[in-house]
């Protein structure tokens, strides 16, 4: 195969597999390759362990890398240590999964998170997010999580909007109004609050003018908000579609 030439990277396959996210292949390659030098060996091990980290098999990394291992590997070990303890990354995964409408995966991730530290604030919040996505009876649990936090610390826009989302998902529009009003008092141009109010006012049967006022506020202050981007795209789509039905000129 490849000669021992200087310009050829003997760890190419290992690195490549790692970079393209094929972690198991990376591990397989790393176990096959025979590094030519201790430096290369260390480098190979770094990729091997990082692949394990990517697979979240932190324990392997923590067990393998001993105190007498090279400093580079010590750094990897620290990374693993950091990641294995950090529920922030899990919270992030959950948020991403929920954005992808993969509630099933989000629940699995949440379970792991809860095993790690059930009482952590982030775990609690993530539980609330998942509960909102699951819906049904879980909505009330989600609500209590937000409520408890605002009792414990103080109510924030995040917590209030969380509560509002729970209420609205339960069709408790009047209750949601109180919560959102509180949020609005805190910050009258908070985009998520405004969006929720746009939803709420309609469900409460308020005059269309009221809803439009919130929409205008949102347009004024948060042109780039994804909600508005979607909204404008939809307007264009409407016009385009409406054309297809336009009555023929001869009629």
């Amino acid at each position, binding site marked *: 195969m490849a000669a021992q030439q200087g310009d050829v990277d003997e760890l190419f396959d290992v690195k490549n597999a790692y970079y393209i996210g*094929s*972690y*198991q292949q990376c*591990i397989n390659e790393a176990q096959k390759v025979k590094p030519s030098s201790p430096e290369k060996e260390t480098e190979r091990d770094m990729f091997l362990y990082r692949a394990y980290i*990517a*697979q*979240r098999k932190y324990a392997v990394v923590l067990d393998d890398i001993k105190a007498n291992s090279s400093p580079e590997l010590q750094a990897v070990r620290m990374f693993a240590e950091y990641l294995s303890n950090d529920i*922030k990354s899990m919270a*992030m995964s959950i*948020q991403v*999964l*929920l*954005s*992808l*409408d*993969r*509630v*099933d*995966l989000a629940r*699995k991730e949440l379970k792991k998170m809860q095993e790690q530290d059930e009482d952590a604030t982030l775990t609690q919040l993530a539980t609330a*997010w998942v509960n*909102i*996505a*699951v*819906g*049904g009876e879980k*909505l009330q649990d989600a609500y209590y999580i937000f409520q408890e936090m605002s009792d414990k610390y103080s109510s924030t*826009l*995040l917590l209030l*909007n969380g509560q*509002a*989302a729970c209420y*609205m*998902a*339960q*069709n408790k529009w009047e209750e949601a109004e109180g919560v959102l009003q509180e949020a609005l008092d805190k910050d009258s141009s908070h985009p*998520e609050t405004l*969006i*929720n109010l*746009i*939803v709420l006012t*309609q*469900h409460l*049967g308020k*005059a*269309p003018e009221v*809803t439009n006022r919130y929409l205008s506020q949102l347009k004024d202050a948060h042109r780039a908000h*994804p909600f508005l981007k979607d*909204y404008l795209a*939809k*307007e264009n*789509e*409407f*016009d385009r*579609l*409406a054309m*297809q*039905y336009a*009555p023929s000129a001869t*009629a």
Partner: protein
Amino acid sequence: MLTKFETKSARVKGLSFHPKRPWVLASLHNGVIQLWDYRMCTLIDKFDEHDGPVRGIDFHKQQPLFVSGGDDYKIKVWNYKLRRCLFTLLGHLDYIRTTFFHHEYPWILSASDDQTIRIWNWQSRTCVCVLTGHNHYVMCAQFHPSEDLVVSASLDQTVRVWDISGLRKKNLSPGAVETEVRGISGVDLFGASDAVVKHVLEGHDRGVNWAAFHPSMPLIVSGADDRQVKIWRMNESKAWELDTCRGHYNNVSCAVFHPRQELILSNSEDKSIRVWDMSKRTGVQTFRRDHDRFWVLGAHPNLNLFAAGHDSGMIVFKLERERPAYAVHSNMLYYVKDRFLRQLDFNSSKDTAVMQLRSGSKFPVFSMSYNPAENAVLLCTRATNLENSTYDLYSIPKESDSQNPDAPEGKRSSGLTAVWVARNRFAVLDRMHSLLIKNLKNEIVKKVQVPSCEEIFYAGTGSLLLRDADGVTLFDVQQKRSLATVKIAKVKYVVWSSDTSHVALLAKHAIMICNRKLESLCNIHENIRVKSGAWDESGVFIYTTSNHIKYALTSGDHGIIRTLDLPIYVTRVRGNSVYCLDRECRPRVLTIDPTEYRFKLALVNRKYDEVLHMVRNAKLVGQSIIAYLQKKGYPEVALHFVKDEKTRFSLALECGNIEVALDAAKALDERSCWERLGEAALLQGHHQVVEMCYQRTKNFDKLTFLYLITGNLAKLRKMMKIAEIRKDMSGHYQAALYLGDVSERVRILKNCGQKSLAYLTAATHGLDDEAETLKENFDPEKETVPEVDPNAQLLQPPPPINPLDTNWPLLTVSKGFFEGAIAAKGKAGQMAADLDMDATGGEGWGDDAELQLDEDGFMDAQEGLGEEGVGKEEGGGWEVEEDLDLPPELDVPVGAGGGAEDGFFVPPTKGMSPTQMWCNNSQLPVDHILAGSFETAMRLLHDQVGVVNFGPYKSLFMQTLSRGRTCYLGLPSQPCLRSHPQRNWKDCGAKQGLPAVGLRLSDLIARLQQCYQLTTAGRFEEAVERFRAILLSVPLLVVDNKQEIAEAQQLITICREYIVGLTMETERKKLPKDTLDQQKRLCEMAAYFTHCNLQPVHMVLVLRTALNLFFKLRNFKTAAGFARRLLELGPKPDVAQQTRKILAACEKTLTDAHQLNYDPHNPFDLCAASFVPLYRGRPIEKCPLSGACYCPPYKGQICRVTQVHQDSHLPFKIIDSILQLFCHKIYFSKMEKTPAVNI
């Protein structure tokens, strides 16, 4: 002393209160015993069997009995239920002074001038004991309320206490048999006496008239001819004089302990009643009469009531007012109890003492005024001498320990009444009856000269109500002037409604309800004292009398809600609860049934939907409500209560409801009913019912004629047969004549011997063979064959072109709410314009409608409609699609969840969002819009409702879309997460979700009001726009029952009628009016407008426009029609008067000067594009959503009403959708709808 009741009679010698009922017995010197109801102030009964004065009288505590004793030596026991004397006890040998029942044993105690006291068993009707010892008349003898003791008073100047435990032991021990009294002493075989003297109280130096035990303490009070009242104390071994009350200057007749207070009451022949303080032994109060000596006193066992008998009658009185001082502010009640100011939170029922009042006044707090802004109170105290009255100003402490509340320093000043008039000002009516305005420091800010004034009441900021001898004046304190005055005598209390729009003025026996301007709205008289009142949230005044809770509507309707045992003071009314304070100052909540007054209120306010709801759901029955409804002109409502068929029948006829009348008539099956029904049905052109009536009454003549005019030849022929069978010649002949059956006529004539006529008939009609045969029958000798008239004309009825099987086209009668609502089972009331009939049109109605209209008023009331009723909106039943669209996540291997189990990082695929599921689960356009799937939504709208022009839908789409998602924040600086509210969130699971719609029928209905207002204001174009928005929103509703479908349809109809009408009116205003033809066209359009189905308030304006235009055009006949329709709507008086004038003018010349394309009696649809009438039977095109009609040339164009539809027939696809259901109905209901024609 507060006199509650007074009687005039002969001298009253004895008195007794009933322990439970509001009754008092008075025994008179003339031998009569009177039973009075002191609350109703009526004499209930009279018992007149004694000869001479009756001095002893006593109610039994439990049984319906009383006992009396008189100068005829008789003791009589009476039953007041049976209203007779049960038996008489004889034995005393002289006048009987007092008679009392024992509280427990079946004993009567009597005291007599024969110097004895006797105890009788009223069950065995025997005397069981004679107490001897006194050596003069015994004036009084009473049992101890709990012990085996008797106290007696005698003219021998002693008071004696007797021990009767021996009697009790002997007679009431188990198995003991009461024995007839042996001998006068009552000493048994062993020398033991049943009753022995325990104490002899000597101290009075004249005869003693009365002695009584204290209810709980070992005390005795006595009154004697030595003009003294003495208090005695006793223990087991002795009794001694405690004190003497001196003050009476003639014989003391009677003395009693106050049952609950440390007081003694006594009365005397010196014509006074005196109240003594027991601990201080001083006179507290004295009440004098001018001419009457007092003889007896009675105390009520439980209530603060006393009675005193005198020379010419008796009085029932109490020593002090029992009304608690209280004030209500929003959810709080403030009241004074036991020298504490207490606060009661109505919502939480938390009752706390907030402060202790400064002591020092012997009088209780009379009234209270509360200032919520400063949390301060004014407490007024009335002294016996009014001039000594004072008030206290307190600032209520913010924090207070309820167990031991603060006693803040108040500011006291003299003054009759003090009332807040502003946040930091109050008014004081001082003893000179002038008005002072003071600040929070209790300093005089200004003095105000007021008209003569005895009392002031609160009347909102800056105002007061001033009471003088015969009226109440609303006085502006700042402007120092009177604003209004109303006449009502002696107002005692004033109760404002929470918004101060109404005020109730309460006098002793009258209530007047006024508005803010003090204009009297109604006057109610009560026979019993009015006690208190409060306004409930719907504007009904709930008040109490001594024995009832009652209601009063501002219209004057009033009635009883429930009875009361004891007076209460209403503090607040909410729903079914009446919050009140009782006389012990305890807050209480009573439950009432508000149905009756709510029902009446709804009728008065024309909230017929509520009325209907109550009719259907409440237990409102009874003759009174039916009579009420009939009297008030609501026979159609009454119809719903009536089960009795006869009444039902009359009511149904009264409101022209033939269907109901027919049902009732069938049930009754009486000739007179069928006759009346027949007449009514004939007037309505309901000839099928008429036929049935004639059949039932066997009215063959009329039936025959009915068949003739309806062209029913087959039945007419049947009638002829029947007549023949009945041998009714003339009926038979008539039927033949109607049928044009000549040979039959000939046959009849021949059969009844009218040979000549038969021959002539046959000959004239060319029945030659027949004629010949008949001719041969003539006897040439005796008879002459009549000449046939050569000029005879054929008498043949015209054959009916089209037999009328169905009823005559019935003119559309303006249906009352109830008929309509009952037919539709809907709640049409919500869609009725919520306007007062008096609202006047705005400028947009133009000069035509404004001949005499004043421009000012639009409408003032715009109450929100009830939003109840529309509840759940689950589509339900969409599981059909469940198996078809498998969510893509199922295609992904489960293992992928871990992300890298197989060594590769497989990014998770996108899952199925709830919005996608919505699209899968639903065929309702709105669900697709909410999901953001405009493409499918448009396709659905196009296919289901036929929308082609989506332009007007854009804002609705965007709005709907924007309410489909909520958001919540995840990690900082990350895009927010989305949540999707679902209407079936409780049980939809992961895949059956349907979006929360957020558009409710009730909201759309509520929006109608705004449209109506714009219409009234004449802003037609804006109104049309809004109506259209509502109309277009209807297909975006999710409805879930038939009633809602009906309502949605009705909503569409309303919008359509208004859009067509208002568009036409806008168009009309743009047209020139120079030539006659142009003017005629204007008139026509105005006339068509009157056939749009509008709310009465708008119809009045439309009709006035049409009326005036037609009048000007000299088309008087049609104008008169408009005028009549206008008057039917009950416009306000000046309009009605004007209309009547025009009508009178029209009726002088009932002709039309010009021929117009308008036939008021022929139902038509109005082409929404060309505004020409499309009379019945003409081809029309209809818009599939709005149902708007068009002449055929407009086929294929955009509907003018919706502006989104093409009028064309669409392929119809049945989709399992409720929405579809009603689209379907609209789509195929070509002959269903007719604009109402009000004749």
